[in-house]
């Protein structure tokens, strides 16, 4: 018994003595199908569907008229990736929080470990999307002039621009998803209804204000002036607010059923 005990807990002790935040990240990545496998498979499927459509247009237009598929420059196909990341943000907090606390993790370590996960996943997905945008350009739209990863909105600037644009966008969706989830954890369904109620009211107030002051053209102009990269930069303060809000809410949340 003692000889057995001498070897195996030594390995275990080294694992448990790693920073708690890193171990929370490892906990989140236990099942990589959820965070990486499934989303990438769906992305591949969407790409395939898109490709078939491009091919159909390409072959059915006279002389392989490239102009016909130019419309795909306005593609929003990878929006799915961003929505899915918000869902991962929601799930990570909702499902893993009670488990992590059951494994003697503090809320603080859980929050930082989750933020680390969001950072790591954003890097991975931003890298994949950026690489795909370069391949898309190099192959003239996969040989048929299709656009999915390089469109009028993203994936056409310099390398740092492309990467950071995707990266910041992904971070926004992760942290907003997670923040929504913390509200549910702390105040359950009632908190969720209140949150959405408040969001709808703020949106309504903004629309009313802009309409009454006849400022819609100014709003449109702002988006044009900012450009798609400028708009993405403006997500950073929103991401920061969502992260801070989620952290504050989580610090007083309980895994009590």
């Amino acid at each position: 018994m003692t000889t057995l005990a001498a070897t195996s807990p030594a390995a275990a002790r080294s694992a448990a003595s790693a920073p708690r935040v890193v171990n929370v990240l490892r906990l989140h990545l236990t099942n990589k199908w959820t965070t990486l496998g499934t989303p990438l498979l769906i992305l591949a499927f969407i790409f395939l569907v898109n490709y078939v459509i491009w091919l159909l247009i390409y072959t059915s237009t006279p002389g392989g008229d490239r102009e016909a598929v130019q419309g795909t420059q306005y593609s929003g196909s990878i929006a799915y990736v961003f929505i899915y990341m918000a869902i991962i943000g929601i799930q990570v907090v909702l499902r893993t929080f009670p488990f992590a606390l059951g494994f003697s993790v503090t809320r603080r370590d859980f929050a930082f470990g989750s933020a680390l996960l969001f950072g790591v996943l954003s890097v991975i997905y931003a890298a994949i999307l950026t690489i795909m945008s370069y391949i898309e350009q190099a192959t003239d739209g996969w040989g048929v002039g299709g656009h999915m990863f390089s469109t009028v909105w993203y994936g056409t600037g310099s390398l740092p621009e492309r990467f950071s644009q995707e990266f910041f966008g992904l971070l926004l969706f992760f942290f907003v998803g997670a923040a929504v989830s913390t509200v549910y954890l702390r105040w359950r369904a009632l908190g969720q209804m209140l949150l959405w109620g408040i969001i709808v009211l703020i949106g309504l107030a903004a629309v009313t204000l802009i309409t009454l002051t006849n400022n819609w053209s100014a709003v449109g102009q702002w988006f044009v002036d900012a450009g798609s990269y400028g708009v993405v930069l403006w997500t950073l303060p929103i991401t920061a607010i969502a992260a801070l809000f989620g952290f504050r809410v989580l610090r007083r949340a309980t895994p009590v059923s």
Partner: protein
Amino acid sequence: MSVIEITNLTKRYGNVLAVNDVSLSLEPDKIHGLLGRNGAGKTTLMQLLTGQDFASYGTISVFGAAPVENAHVLRQLCFIKESQKYPEDFRVKHVFRNAPLFFENWHAAFADQLIGEFRLPLNRRIKKLSRGQLSSLGVIVGLASRAPLTFFDEPYLGLDAVARQLFYDRLLEDFAEHPRTVILSTHLIDEVQNLLEHVVVIDQGRILVDSDAEELRGSATTIAGTARAVDEFTAGRTVISRQGLGSLAQATVSRLSAEDRAAAAAAGLDISPVSLQQLVVSLSGAAESASQADNAAQAARGSRGERTLQAERTVQAERTSQKGQDR
């Protein structure tokens, strides 16, 4: 030096006082029993002690510090909660892959041995586990983590008799080799009574008993015989409970001296030690009727007779047993 020190702890959920002004101190390296009925406040108390929930009032000290958000305290403890939630996509093996990351004394070989003994399917999804298998999973994590302070909240719900015995055996063996503080909450008192060194009985959020197990067992005795003999003997004594059947009766009375015992024997009464379970039941019952008597006195405008009280009690009992089945 005590492991846990609680002073005037109160937890309120809306109008419900789940824990009501509790003060308690628990010694290290012992197996403590936290006993009480469903809804008595056992789980709430443990959630407060493990920093999962926040106290409304009062102070908690675990290993000399407040447990809430205290990584230094929390990493020394393991809380096996009856209603523990697991990530949606987890299989049993995923739990064991993560346990060494969070429990410093995790013993993988011991876990493997227990997985075999409890016949736990490693590859099965957690949500497909039966109630008993879910309990086995908790028990194995609790034992193999060898945390200096381990909480087991109703650890054997749904476990068969063999598995329950296995749990008690392994707990005692491992406890002997690696002394630590264990807090075991249960309502299956008879099964664990030989395991426990210290007993805390909680009812409606209040501590009814906080005592050494041996001392508690000696604190009461059951006498049985003819109703007349029993009544004569118990006259002027503290009777904890009394049951009669025709001309026969049985009563639980507080501690008897040697002369008392001789007198009882001379009167033709049978003397037997009271089981922990009987003691807890009669103590809880006494507390209940005391509080009901209070209620009745308050509402004593003739509207609430003995019959409605009796009916209420039946409804309450039914609710409790239903709750047990739901789990």
